[in-house]
């Protein structure tokens, strides 16, 4: 039913040579789809945590509110703003590259990475303060808390910890992207890697948008 030419030996040789130099054919849309699918798994990963949060919040509403007052809303808000602004800069970097402005692209990516570092520094101080007050998983103090408060702080550490891990990963991705822009591997005709790096960074932002009110603002 389908026309499939019989393979002869000479032709095989050409196939063989072709396969050894095997240049993967470029499929930007496929690459982007792959990134989106990966983002879905990340969403589901955090989705599992949000289910845990929702269940315990429904079981211990009062404890959760009391515990949340101990979090620093100011740092939380600040970090939200940092992430939103960095989301914008990374989105702009794509525009810059599309317009052929390589310098601006690098500049904008640099700013994004800088924001990521500031976010982590903030997080460090925030966690550090809690540790200073002996409020960390496994500490004596934690075990004396009310059950709901204990769960709140456990979730707080687990969720923000996992999120911070994603920030670090995102940062690494952006650094790689930045270097590739610099070397010209990513340019205004082939920039799907930049787009994918940006998508990943936005994912980090998406998750924070939910984490922020659920952890910091329910007082």
């Amino acid at each position, binding site marked *: 039913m389908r026309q499939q030419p019989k393979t002869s030996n000479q032709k095989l040789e050409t196939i063989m040579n072709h396969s050894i130099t095997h240049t993967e054919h470029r499929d930007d*849309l496929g690459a982007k789809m792959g990134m989106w*699918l990966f983002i*879905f798994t990340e969403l589901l990963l955090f989705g599992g945590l949000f*289910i845990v949060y*929702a269940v315990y919040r429904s079981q211990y509403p009062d404890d959760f509110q009391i515990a949340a007052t101990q979090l620093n809303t100011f740092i939380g808000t600040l970090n939200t*703003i940092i992430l939103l602004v960095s989301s*914008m800069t990374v*989105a702009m970097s794509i525009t810059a590259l599309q317009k052929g402005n390589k310098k601006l692209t690098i500049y904008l990516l640099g700013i994004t990475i800088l924001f990521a570092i500031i976010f982590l520094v903030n997080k460090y101080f925030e966690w550090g303060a809690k540790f200073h007050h002996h409020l960390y998983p496994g500490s004596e103090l934690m075990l004396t808390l009310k059950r709901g408060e204990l769960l709140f702080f456990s979730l707080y550490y687990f969720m923000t910890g996992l999120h911070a891990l994603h920030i670090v990963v995102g940062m690494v991705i952006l650094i790689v992207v930045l270097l590739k822009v610099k070397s010209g591997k990513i340019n205004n005709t082939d920039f799907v890697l930049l787009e994918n790096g940006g998508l990943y960074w936005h994912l980090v932002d998406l998750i924070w948008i939910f984490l922020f*009110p659920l952890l910091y603002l*329910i007082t």
Partner: protein
Amino acid sequence: MSNGKHHITDYKTYAWVLVILLFFTALTVFVSWFDFKALTIAVALIIASIKVTIVLTYFMHLKYDYLVFRLMVSMVFLLIALVFVITFFDYLFR
């Protein structure tokens, strides 16, 4: 196979999107000072959902990308919502 259509978004659009997002951030912080009783969490989640939709649409280019991406994203969010609802068939009626 085409390598996707490329829409170039202005810097200005992004700046406006950021302003709107910051506005909603301020709003969610602001409303958290009031007590809406049972609705508190709903209000916070509605604002967060609006923000997430904006990020998805503009920063993540869903508005300009292929329809299939939009379908997939909505399917995934629908699925997460369904899993929540079904899990709570247990916890709300225990």
